């Protein structure tokens, strides 16, 4: 009997899941033959089109039901159909991070005997937001329902969306002060929250009394349920039309077919080799100043297999800048689906191709579930690094149209309180879904375009955000010099200037990063600038408004921004952009950058006319035009080509004069290790790295010619 397919309908799910895992382990395949595709390839595609259409419709419906701007406007959701063992067959567009997180939740329920101990019945509704089971952090919320044919479980449908208020210690579910799981709000690990297609009243009461404002959580739950039910209806129709046997078999074939197509695509387009890139995140709080690195080695075999090895990754700790393995894996899927597998199906077959190794105890594989994961941290950095490596693999094969530098670290406002209509509100502003995109090998990055984790890239209307979180926009413009410099510059993100409202209660802060370059450049391009939040208190804004005097709306000169020069007040500069939410008085100014992409190639290869265009459009500063790009403009703004070439020659000469041979540089830095003359942040990082034995440690010591027992003083 085929235990995995179980046409009898009598084999326990746990046994089927065990058999499936054993089969994959033994053969490397999901199933061995795709008989339906072989006998009727057209019918195979027609069925899939019906399936994917239904799932896309389900997502559209869910968006209409949802309450939150992120699910309605920003596309922060994904819906999908799964096999009885929980493997994804077909997913909607949306959050590609979650290709496997709902699968993991379903498998977790099976592994934990839900079939016998909790009960899985028609009409049941399960909820999960536990990232150690499947997800990214508490705001990643899943609604999953079982699909039955008569009394046989034939699959699952589910929806996942980001809900930005979860009752955490800071509003919005994401904040740098969350040091353990117990700061992160309400977790419901694979909990049955409904029966008979209806949510339980006590579930809704629990949510309503556990979070600052429950409307997004509760209505977005209904939205996901509505979508999942639409998928259920579609499956019923397909089973009636094609028969149950066909439905069950073809789902398995889609997974295997995807696995094969994925390997084939990689083999054809990515040059084989060993690639290494590094992503960075960190924490800069009074009690913890630490860099976290994600050194990623990506090996692409000539056969088209991919192994992502994170040996050397920073250790987990008492902070939220870390992630679970499901999230680390999800970030890799998100990158690879958008940049390599955009023309194949994506489902469990995609996941079967990707092998990853994440050290136990690291910041992407914490030692226990009590470690906070709100800000993902080095998982995002790992995705960045893998992406950079994929671009190198495309480049080597000549596919320059696929090569790009690094996407933005996204940064956002978090806020909660009571608004001017006495309504409770809480959440975060997701306008950074329109961050600056990466530069490519053939064009500049797009300004205010996308966020890597959300390819639909929509900032949302300012007016909608003002009703959701009652901050008053004074301006929303493009950040000056936001994109990393390069032959092709990175896209610049949003630069929003807010005035704080006079409301009964307001907690306001931001999540961003450590004071570092968060997005590295590629092949000579420069990193995107560090995000910086400005908070200006005790301003003269009220008086200015009364007297109808100008207000700061734009960034102005990045070295001396308008919020500092065009209003009076006490200025606080928040480097890196992490700012713990707190009360901020009315008529204060608050500046939030969204996120910027990095640059590609040598700045001196940039066409001078492009520099002038950016200068004219206010995207590049005069300082950058002259000092970084070496472009000389006449008084009336015309590029002086001869003077530009002369200045660029001067810059090249300066490079040769100040650059030192690499072996001399190494000797110089080695001395710093021996004398202990390194900054505290470096020492903390290396002390942690060198405490973990492995490839990274060995190569580190070899590079600096340090003894095998070397330790940081």
């Amino acid at each position, binding site marked *: 009997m085929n235990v995995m397919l179980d046409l009898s309908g009598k084999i326990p799910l746990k046994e089927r899941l065990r058999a499936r895992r054993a089969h994959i382990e033994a053969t490397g395949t999901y199933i061995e033959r795709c008989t339906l595709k072989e006998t009727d390839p057209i019918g195979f595609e027609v069925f899939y089109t019906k399936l994917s259409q239904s799932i896309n419709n389900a997502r559209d419906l869910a968006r209409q039901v949802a309450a939150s701007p992120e699910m309605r406007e920003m596309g922060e959701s994904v819906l999908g159909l799964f096999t009885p063992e929980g493997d994804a067959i077909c997913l909607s567009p949306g959050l590609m991070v979650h290709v496997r997180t709902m699968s993991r939740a379903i498998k977790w329920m099976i592994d934990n005997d839900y079939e016998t101990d909790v009960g899985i019945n028609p009409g049941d509704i399960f909820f999960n937001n536990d990232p150690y089971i499947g997800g990214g952090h508490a705001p990643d919320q899943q609604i999953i329902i079982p699909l039955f044919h008569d009394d046989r479980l034939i699959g699952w449908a589910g929806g996942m969306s980001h809900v930005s208020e979860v009752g955490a210690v800071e509003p919005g579910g994401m904040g740098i002060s969350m040091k353990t799981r117990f700061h992160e709000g309400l977790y419901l690990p694979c909990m049955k929250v409904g029966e008979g297609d209806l949510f339980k009243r006590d579930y809704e009461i629990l949510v309503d009394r556990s979070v600052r404002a429950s409307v997004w959580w509760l209505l977005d739950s209904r939205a996901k349920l509505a979508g999942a039910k639409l998928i259920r209806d579609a499956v019923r129709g397909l089973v009636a039309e094609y028969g149950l046997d066909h439905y069950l078999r073809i789902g398995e074939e889609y997974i295997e077919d995807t696995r094969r197509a994925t390997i084939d695509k990689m083999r*054809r*387009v990515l*040059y*084989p*080799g060993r*690639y*290494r*890139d*590094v992503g*960075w995140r960190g924490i*800069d709080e009074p009690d913890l100043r630490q860099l976290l690195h994600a050194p990623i080695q990506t090996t692409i*075999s000539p056969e088209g297999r991919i192994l992502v090895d994170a040996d050397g990754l920073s250790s987990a700790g008492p902070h939220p800048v870390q992630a679970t393995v499901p999230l680390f894996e999800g970030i890799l899927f998100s990158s690879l689906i958008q940049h390599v597998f955009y023309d194949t199906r994506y489902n469990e077959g995609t996941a079967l191709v990707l092998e990853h190794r994440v050290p136990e105890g690291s910041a992407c594989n914490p030692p226990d579930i009590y470690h906070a994961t709100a800000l993902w941290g080095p998982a995002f950095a790992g995705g960045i690094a893998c992406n950079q*490596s994929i671009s*190198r693999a495309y*480049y*080597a*094969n*000549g596919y*320059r*149209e696929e090569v790009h530098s690094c996407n933005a670290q996204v940064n956002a406002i978090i806020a909660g309180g009571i608004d001017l209509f006495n309504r409770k509100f809480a959440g975060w502003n997701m306008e950074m879904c329109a961050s600056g995109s990466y530069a490519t090998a*053939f*064009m500049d990055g797009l300004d205010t375009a996308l966020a890597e984790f959300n390819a639909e890239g929509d900032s949302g209307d300012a007016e909608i955000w003002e009703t959701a979180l009652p901050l008053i926009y004074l301006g929303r413009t493009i950040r000056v*010099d936001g994109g990393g*410099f390069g*032959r*092709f510059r990175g896209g610049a993100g949003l630069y929003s200037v807010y005035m704080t409202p006079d409301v009964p209660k307001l907690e306001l802060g931001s999540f961003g990063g450590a*004071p*570092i370059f968060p997005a*590295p450049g590629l*092949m*000579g*391009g420069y*990193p995107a*600038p*560090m*995000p*910086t939040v400005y908070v200006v208190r005790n301003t003269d804004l009220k008086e200015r408004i009364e007297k109808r005097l100008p207000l700061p709306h734009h960034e102005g000169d*990045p*070295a001396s921004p308008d919020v500092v020069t065009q209003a009076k007040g006490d200025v606080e500069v928040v*480097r890196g952009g992490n700012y713990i939410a707190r009360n901020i008085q009315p008529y204060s100014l608050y500046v939030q950058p969204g996120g910027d992409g990095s640059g590609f190639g*040598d*700045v001196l*290869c940039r066409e001078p006319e492009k520099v002038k265009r950016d200068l004219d459009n206010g995207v590049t500063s005069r300082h*950058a035009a002259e*000092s*970084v790009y070496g472009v000389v403009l006449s008084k009336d703004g015309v590029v002086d080509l001869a003077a530009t070439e002369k200045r660029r020659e001067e810059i090249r000469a300066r*490079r*040769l004069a100040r*650059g*030192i*041979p*690499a072996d001399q*540089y*190494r000797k110089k830095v080695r001395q710093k*290790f021996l004398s202990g003359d*390194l*900054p*505290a942040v470096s020492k903390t990082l*290396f002390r942690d790295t060198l405490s973990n034995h492995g490839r990274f440690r060995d190569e580190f010591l070899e590079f*600096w010619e340090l003894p095998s027992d070397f330790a940081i003083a």
Partner: protein
Amino acid sequence: MSLLEEKELSDLLDGTLDLERVREIQRAPKDLDRRERLLAIEQKRLGWKDRIVLALQESLFIVQTDAGKTVRCRCGHHFGDYRRNWKESALVHERDPQDGELYASANAPTKDWMILREFYCPTCATLLDTENVPQGYPFIFNFLPYFQDEKP
């Protein structure tokens, strides 16, 4: 998609190909002889004769010489065996991000957190790579390609 003309490939290399055409190319199945065709275009442009076997990154190629496969800059500068990180033969400048040349002070890290390591070609001074790393971080060996005819 029609086959890519040599002129189109050349424009793609230069970043001057019409963006609508780039989009068509992105949407079409990949042409499997692209690597060889691009290398042929690059080879014609160079002022030296060593045969390119791979475009490693902007301005850097792996070329076949009597001594084996080595990394060579567009300008002709030799960086040595491809199995050794070319950065170890480059000029290095450790930039303090607060030096005022590039970023506004509020938008750049202090060197206690991160420095910008710049790698220049010792002959033509092309900026070949930047690394944003903390002080003391080893050079990153970005790419060791696989060649069927030899072990890395």
